[in-house]
């Protein structure tokens, strides 16, 4: 072990505190702004970090201007649907690619790799005209569909299944289990970690997505939170307290989720980066 001198330790903590201020400080500043009442001057100099009279008024205030809770519900619907479709679609396809032998397997695998190379930004216009032709534009269904099964998730699941030892399935084969039984009872429970990664990143991706919902949703009744916040920002930006309350509503659920499930977030970065 190399020893760390006292000076180095102090310097490291000092630097870490500085970076903490830079990375987390802005969120705390926003939280503080969201609790400042209408009578409190938010432009004071020097800037006041603690609200003088903390109030939840901005949270009800923002709900009077845009239906922020309905938007949150829309985002939740989209995100949860995205989780379910990705878990089902990616684990099924990943299992077939990793464990089943059939003609055309390589080609099927290649289709997912090619899909990974096409940036979403370069197909949004075609997706938009397609949704219009299907009369789905301006619906939450249209928001969900293009990301319903992510190519990266399929490849992550394929790798997870491919890394399982064959022996555990061989025993089941001898016992006469068919392919569906093996998939559901043996393979799936063995890749819970990767399933958690896929679930979390599907949730986060859908909850945070902006470009596609912005393009496909035109009626403010169907907005998701990100599109709703953009609208709020464009129309009421003269009141930063309300915008602050809206952003806190949008970010709080993810921070809670992250606090509870950190290791899966970190694992997802590692696995996604290597494949992506």
């Amino acid at each position, binding site marked *: 072990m*190399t020893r760390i001198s006292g000076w180095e330790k102090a310097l*490291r903590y000092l630097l870490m505190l500085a*970076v*903490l201020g830079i990375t*987390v400080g802005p969120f705390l*500043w926003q939280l503080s702004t969201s609790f400042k009442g209408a009578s409190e001057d938010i432009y004071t*100099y020097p*800037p006041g970090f603690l609200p003088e009279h903390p109030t939840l008024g901005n949270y009800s205030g923002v709900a009077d201007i845009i239906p922020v809770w309905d938007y949150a519900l829309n985002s939740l619907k989209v995100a949860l649907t995205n989780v379910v479709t990705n878990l*089902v*679609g*990616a684990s099924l*396809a990943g299992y*077939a690619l990793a464990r*089943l*032998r*059939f003609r055309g397997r390589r080609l*099927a695998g290649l*289709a997912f790799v*090619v*899909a990974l190379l*096409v*940036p979403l*930004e*370069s*197909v*949004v*216009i*075609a*997706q*938009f*005209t397609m949704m219009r032709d299907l009369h789905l534009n301006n619906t939450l269904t249209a928001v969900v*569909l*293009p990301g*319903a*099964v992510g*190519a990266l998730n399929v490849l992550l699941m394929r790798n997870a299944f491919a890394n399982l030892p*064959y022996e555990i399935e*061989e025993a089941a084969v001898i016992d006469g*289990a*068919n392919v569906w039984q*093996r998939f559901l009872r043996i393979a799936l429970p063995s890749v819970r970690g990767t399933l958690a990664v896929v679930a979390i990143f599907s949730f*986060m991706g859908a909850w945070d997505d*902006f*470009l596609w919902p912005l*393009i496909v949703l035109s009626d403010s009744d169907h907005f998701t939170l*990100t599109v709703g916040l953009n609208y709020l*920002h464009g129309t009421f*930006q003269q009141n*930063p307290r309300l*915008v602050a309350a809206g*952003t806190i509503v*949008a*970010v709080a659920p*993810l*921070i809670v*989720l*992250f606090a509870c499930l*950190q290791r899966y977030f*970190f694992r997802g970065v590692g696995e996604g*980066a290597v494949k992506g």
Partner: protein
Amino acid sequence: MKQPSVRVRTHRAASPWLFLIPGLGVIAAFNLYPFLTTVRKAFTDARTLTPGSWVGLRNFQDMLDDDQFWVALRNSGLYVLLVVPFTVLLPLLLALLVHKRLPGVTFFRSAFYTPVVASVVVVSLIWVWMLDDRGLINGILRFFGAGPVAFLGDEWLLLFSAMALTVWKGLGYYMIIYLAALADVPRELHEAAAVDGAGALRRFVSVTVPALRSTMVLVGALSSVAAFKVFSEVYLLAGPTGGPAGQDTTLVMLVQRTGTGLSGRVGYASALSLVVFVIALLLMLLVLRADRKESAS
């Protein structure tokens, strides 16, 4: 691969395709097919409400005469040039800062990751408020006797602010990638260098950087493609029309603005989309190729 004979008999020929239908269906319908549509429409004068007809290369010729296109290409290109060096270097330094086992270090790691978890819309709106003429940053500047600076009023300051935001939001993400790679750097290398009397900077340049080179290339490739496709940060800081006189429009913003709405020029937007696709792919190949050449020499 060991027991094909047993496994082949246990599933009927149809079942692998039953497993694949949902995934392949979505990918084919919403990814591969739209891509083919994009290629086809790039050579037509299609609009939102009319299918359009074949116009050959006219969309691409129009692009050459389109000032907005050149502005957007310049901005997206500058984004790559100015953002990528920081996203390759700063997260590496951050990873070095938090990879030593000190009490509380896992808390700092998680905290540094917070901006990654938040939606880009949320962090952009936080930054808009901080960069306000009378916002937090100008308050701090005033403390040092400077400012106020109208960050969001000037086309260049606005673009640089958006770039800073992109770098800031990516810090935690790329830090985690570097931390995973750092765990694989043999400690003995560092110790041997330290015994030989190499200082911290010298060890960083001659031990850490070579050991992490392939990870730096990976981060460079990922962040160049991401930077080139930038949309949300600039859209939110500059507004839908792209800042003063549209001078802060990026390529993807131009695609979005041109191709949507009732009078959207779908054909022209598809041609722009193709340009985005080709350049993103080239950037990826370029960075990866540079890596191979360097490791060969």
